């Protein structure tokens, strides 16, 4: 047996300590291994969270560090829940989350089903389709503003090619009616492969023998699809929806680069709104309360959803 790192460390240290290195109990090793992770997460995640909760009850403003901090109780929460602007923001977010999920599930499942027909070269094309998902949303979102330009962007020309509309007559990110769809299109382009990959894993997990049995019973392909394929893929699909739902509820980088929340505030999703309150208007206490409300919302919705998911899984 060659000399290991531990042996060398042990022989270089005094007898008493060396015994400790050699013969650490499992429990001690467990704590030494987990300790750093827990400490770092406490420092960078939990401590700030507690601080946010504290700040949400005050009128603190981060741009005036010297000013006196006053305890205001639930006033911040009250103001947020009565603010019509925030409800408009929530609507923009809901529109974004609903339609991106709708298109991604539809296209993602269809693609997965097609890829599962096992044509030649399906691996290569799957990898190509997956590419956008791994790229930086900020950099890609920024470049899409160029593709969306009314006169020089290629997107309008593609629309022209299919519909015959004048490419200079509309602006995807400048028009109040089109802008909410411009972010849906880019997000769908980027994240459909995610849903596709998960559905594909679901499809591949279905044992061949079930279809063979159905075939013996003379079940039509159509019936097989609805009674075997769909129910078996459903738990996977629901998992994909959970991931995408949480991610898109938090969406910031892509939208801020694409539309910046504009025109007006038509695409101002919650993260952008929160950033305005916290880092442009510097209403730190107020935005902390806002952050707490968002966190509770995501957490609550996600837990209800996970319960439903487990019920589908155990069926």
């Amino acid at each position, binding site marked *: 047996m060659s000399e290991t790192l531990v042996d060398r460390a042990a022989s270089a240290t005094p007898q008493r300590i060396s015994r400790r290195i050699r013969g*650490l109990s499992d429990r001690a090793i467990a704590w030494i291994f987990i300790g750093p992770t827990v400490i770092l997460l406490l420092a960078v995640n939990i401590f700030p969270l507690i601080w946010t909760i504290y700040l949400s009850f005050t009128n603190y403003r981060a741009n005036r560090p010297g000013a006196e901090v006053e305890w205001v109780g639930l006033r911040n929460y009250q103001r947020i829940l009565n603010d019509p602007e925030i409800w408009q923001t929530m609507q923009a977010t809901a529109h974004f989350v609903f339609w991106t999920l709708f298109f991604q599930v539809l296209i993602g499942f269809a693609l997965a089903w097609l890829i599962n027909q096992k044509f*030649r070269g399906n691996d290569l094309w799957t990898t190509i389709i997956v590419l956008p998902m791994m790229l930086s949303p900020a950099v890609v979102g920024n470049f899409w503003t160029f593709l969306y330009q009314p006169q020089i962007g290629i997107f309008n020309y593609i629309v022209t090619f299919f519909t015959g509309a004048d490419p200079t007559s509309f602006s995807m990110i400048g028009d109040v009616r089109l802008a909410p769809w411009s972010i849906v299109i880019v997000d769908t382009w980027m994240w459909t492969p995610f849903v596709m990959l998960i559905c594909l894993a679901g499809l591949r997990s279905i044992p061949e023998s079930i279809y063979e049995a159905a075939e013996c019973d003379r079940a039509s392909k159509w019936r097989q699809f609805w009674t075997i394929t769909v129910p078996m893929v459903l738990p996977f699909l629901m998992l994909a929806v959970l991931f995408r739902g949480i991610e898109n509820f938090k969406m910031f980088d892509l939208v801020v680069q694409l539309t910046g929340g504009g025109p007006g505030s038509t695409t101002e999703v919650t993260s952008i709104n929160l950033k305005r309150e916290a880092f442009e208007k510097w209403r730190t206490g107020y935005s902390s309360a806002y952050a707490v409300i968002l966190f509770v919302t995501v957490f609550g919705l996600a837990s209800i959803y996970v319960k439903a998911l487990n019920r589908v899984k155990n069926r």
Partner: protein
Amino acid sequence: MSSYSITEPSRGMKWTAGLLVVAYALITLLPLLWIMATGFKSTNDAIAYPPKVFFEPTLEGYVNLFTIQNRASAEQLAENPATTWYDRIVQDKGMVISGPSRFGEMFMNSVIIGFGSTFLSVVLGTLAAYAFSRFRVPLKDDLMFFILSTRMMPPIAVAIPIFLMFRAVGLSDTHAGMILLYTAVNLSLAVWLLKGFIDEIPREYEEAALIDGYTRFQAFVKVVLPQAATGIASTAIFCLIFAWNEYAFAVLLTSGNAQTAPPFIPTIIGNTGRDWPAVAAGATIFLVPVMVFTILLRKHLLRGITFGAVRK
């Protein structure tokens, strides 16, 4: 498959499916190809109306990306004849190079912060994942869920207290601060993924080593680590890609010193309006490494993006 199977799709079905998927893949690829092509266009070709598919390639965009330029008079140009190919490109437009741009710096920031935080999160993550996988840890499920739940907060919400905290301890706009922050964010992914990989290594290997007289720690280093190498490598790439792509924290917590490329690339502006070839050049340099890694990772992709919830 050699034998005939009644569930095998028909030839026609395969062809139709193949054509549809290829069509979708090409549509997906189009914006990416357009970015790369724009990087090699001249400024005029990039904003041509209608858009140009065929053009004469030039490195103007890349030169603009890496340099700062000033307008020069005819005499100045005559006094300093171009000596290199990039000088020539710039002087053809009646400009001279006055220095390097900040893109190189920001790109290096991305590299330092990306690799630094990846290294830290993989080291800490491997240790924690091993402990979670092999030992009876009190409150194990709660701890694991706590680690996961740190990902549910919108980054902007977390950024408020972190901004205050970093300001208080002097970590704002430093490499160390960003490395720590990204490590914390990536740790949840690293622990969940690595626990899955280590769970798959049979315990019998270690037990055999323990019987042979290895200590726990030796067994971990000599038996588990080599077995988990592929898993560790793919986890590392996922962490790297995350840190590489991250924007929200970077734009709020850094400015001149430790800014990474994602917040910098959208701020590139030319002398007359937006310099799209330079932006495209920056985006290309920034995106291509990730594309290469994605292709390398394709087998573990699903696992990485679902926190190990779906394994293939």
